[in-house]
């Protein structure tokens, strides 16, 4: 009892603001500090950006698939970016490619994916009332919003948005006179990203703190669902790597606006020598890719975590190799920091150094293979329930394997000489990072939609959406590998000036048609998403018979998540189809003393610990009430 009192005394001052009173509209839905509302804000913003980013890709696919086609019907949208002859302005093509990359990588798959599911699931699955700091969490979303706003404004500039590729290599990005996209567009890009980095850091700090400090009674690290493990490690990656991008961007800003020479040296523009001497553009690449490579895993790991959870639940089997899964997440995260130079094999790097980075890169195949193997063995002989979430998770495993295999090819510094900056690279990372993470996003939405909105998504529409998307993604990116092997360079407006270049036209046309098809398939999802929010079937409390804590909350989760006490946790989250048990799932909050018929011998020893768990402090942030 004295324990609780001691905690009460400690918490009294900091939680005065959590008085139970009705919040007004602004505090409840706009500047909310509730993690569930913030998660939905991230999700809606992410979906908004995904539509814009995908629409951009459709426009440049039109140019690639049908070079020289009359696009004057796009004039109402694009205005002067469509020339008199009905062609797409090449400058705008470059801007579209750049914006597509930036939006998809940062706004959709970093903020949209982590922001939605880390915010939503961490407190619910570890058993916390809310994030460690609701205020910082709100600040994180609104900084993201402002950064998105700046990027959005840049799209409408007369000189166009940034156009130097999403990697913004100097000197192209550092010199406003280099390209029209390097003028105001680039300035806004850098400001937007600086704010985005702050937003991302605040978010990540909150996730890590919540997972480590606010777990409920009995929720040891080896009882955390794999989603939480993935979110935790992702947040750690973000905390370590995003400041480095900020560093790179800062020096670039000094070069652009103050005339320093960090990245610039001995450049002639229009026959005139610039005063900058002594800089190194390669330095930027090192700094950028030190973030850029971990960023790939910041995007992918949450999707893998979601997949682990959805696959185990819907295969009605414990996840295969729980600890191996955690170890492989950690191994991937560790290796992520020491492989960045494989993006720079052709920068004139010492070939010996290149082979070291190649070696380290190829090691990533090991933990990745462990994950793929564990997913497949979890599915093996399971009682699989093909919910849309499950389909997207299985689809993710497929994409992870087929996209990962081309990673082994690209990781070779010798093969990279041929394949560097071709469509082979584009196909590789779109499958393994883009599509796989998007599938994780969809899997998460289909799986947790009932918890988010208290209603079910239409399952038939979900299955149609899956099959169209799955087929579409492969139809787009499989042929793209061949275009790349043949030597078609990425980021080119068109590649038909030489006769051999013309031989790519039919494959490119096919890819473009498939891309447009896939784009329109997503509207099935959008309709399902918004329609079900209001008209969907009301969800039961635990629609997928899942074990994790979020399904012990009421159907419509209120502020504070649980009514009354936060449940304690007695077991790991994967007790599916346990031998001896009548039901095929035993939630985490069921003590072993209630499941004597299905306990393994060593689990009977845990019964003695139940008293200890119950005596632990609550970690209840709202405890003072």
């Amino acid at each position, binding site marked *: 009892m004295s324990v609780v009192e001691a905690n009460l005394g400690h918490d009294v001052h900091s939680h005065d603001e959590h008085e139970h009173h009705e919040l007004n509209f602004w505090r409840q839905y706009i500047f909310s500090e509730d993690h569930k509302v913030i998660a939905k804000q991230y999700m809606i913003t992410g979906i908004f950006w995904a539509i814009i980013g995908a629409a951009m890709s459709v426009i440049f696919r039109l140019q690639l698939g049908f070079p020289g086609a009359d696009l004057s019907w796009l004039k109402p949208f694009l205005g002067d970016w469509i020339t008199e002859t009905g062609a797409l302005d090449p400058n705008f093509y470059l801007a579209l490619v750049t914006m597509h990359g930036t939006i998809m990588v940062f706004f959709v798959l970093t903020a949209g994916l982590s922001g939605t599911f880390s915010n939503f699931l961490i407190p619910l699955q570890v058993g916390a009332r809310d994030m460690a700091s609701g205020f910082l969490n709100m600040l994180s979303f609104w900084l993201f919003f402002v950064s998105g706003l700046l990027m959005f404004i840049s799209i409408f500039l007369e000189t166009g948005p940034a156009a130097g590729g999403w990697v913004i290599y100097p000197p192209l990005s550092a010199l406003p006179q280099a390209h029209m996209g390097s003028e105001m567009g680039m300035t806004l890009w850098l400001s937007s990203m600086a704010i985005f980095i702050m937003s991302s850091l605040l978010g990540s*700090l909150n996730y890590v703190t919540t997972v480590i400090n606010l777990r409920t009674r009995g929720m040891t690290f080896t009882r955390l669902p794999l989603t939480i493990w993935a979110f935790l490690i992702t947040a750690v990656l973000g905390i370590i*790597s995003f400041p480095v991008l900020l560093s790179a961007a*800062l020096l670039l800003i000094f070069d652009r606006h103050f005339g320093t020479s960090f990245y610039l040296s001995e450049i002639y523009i229009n026959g005139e020598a610039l005063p900058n001497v002594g800089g190194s553009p390669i330095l930027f690449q090192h700094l950028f890719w030190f973030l850029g490579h971990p960023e790939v895993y910041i995007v992918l790991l949450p999707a893998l975590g979601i997949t682990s959870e959805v696959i185990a639940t819907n295969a009605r089997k414990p996840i295969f190799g729980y600890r191996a899964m955690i170890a492989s997440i950690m191994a991937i995260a560790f290796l992520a920091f020491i492989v960045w130079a494989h993006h720079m094999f052709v920068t004139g790097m010492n070939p010996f150094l290149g082979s070291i980075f190649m070696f380290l890169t190829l090691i990533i195949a090991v933990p990745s293979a462990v994950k793929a193997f564990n997913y497949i063995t979890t599915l093996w002989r399971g009682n699989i329930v093909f919910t849309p979430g499950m389909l997207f998770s299985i689809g993710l495993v497929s994409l992870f394997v087929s996209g990962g295999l081309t990673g082994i090819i690209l990781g070779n510094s010798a093969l990279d000489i041929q394949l560097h900056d071709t469509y082979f690279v584009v196909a590789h990372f779109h499958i393994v990072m883009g599509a796989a993470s998007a599938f994780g996003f969809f899997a998460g939405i289909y799986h947790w939609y009932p918890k988010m909105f208290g209603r079910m998504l239409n399952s038939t529409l979900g299955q149609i959406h899956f099959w169209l998307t799955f087929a579409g993604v492969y139809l787009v990116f499989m042929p793209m590998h061949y275009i790349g092997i043949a030597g078609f360079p990425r980021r080119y407006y068109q590649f038909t000036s030489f006769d051999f270049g013309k031989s790519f036209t039919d494959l490119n046309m096919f890819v473009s048609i498939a891309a447009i098809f896939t784009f329109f398939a997503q509207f099935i999802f959008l309709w399902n998403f918004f329609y079900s929010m209001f008209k969907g079937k009301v969800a039961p409390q635990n629609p997928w018979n899942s074990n994790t804590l979020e399904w012990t909350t009421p159907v419509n989760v209120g502020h504070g998540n649980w009514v009354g006490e936060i449940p304690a946790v007695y077991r790991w989250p994967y007790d599916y189809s346990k031998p001896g048990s009548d039901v095929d799932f035993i939630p985490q909050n069921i003590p072993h003393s209630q499941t004597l018929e299905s306990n393994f011998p060593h689990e009977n020893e845990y019964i003695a610990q139940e008293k200890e768990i119950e005596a632990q402090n609550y970690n209840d942030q709202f405890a003072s009430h």
Partner: protein
Amino acid sequence: MAKVEKLRIEEAPETLSMDPKKFILWGFIVTIIMLFASQTSAYLVRRAEGNWVEFEVPQIFWTSSVVLIISSIAMHWAYLAAKKDNFNTLKIAISITFVLGLAFLWMQVEGWKDLVAQNIYFVGNPSGSFFYVFTLLHGVHLVTGLIVLCVTFISAMRLKVHAKNLRRIEICTTYWHFLDILWLYLFAFLLYFR
């Protein structure tokens, strides 16, 4: 109190042992460390390429370092005062820390003037530019430290900082000491890798 703490640890081996707000501070410190780690490694990478102008580090940076160390001692004095519920000392100690922080910033600017007198400008050879960037970035972080000091001072005025509510002063102290150590690292780095 100590007995209760011990009891709690024994009963709850797996759950919370650290204040979440303080944990967030440590996470924030990690991000700052990464920022400066990337800056200093960029410095080393660039320096290794040659074409590097060497210059004398102005004397005033030695003085400013000493001032910052003294401010850290004052900060610690404030912390001890808060622990003993010694409110007057607390306010005086925080004020001294604040003034010394301002003095440090002023000296950094004077240091820049000395650099300019040596013909080392922000725009020019990256060796000089890096020097300005490091001092500037540290200065910006020190300004945030001053803001934290102000907030702590105001809550000390309202008697919200006392032996039973040390969180705020602890956060403030940790952050200020960190900024101090960060500068000493940067200064030693800049002296050693000229």
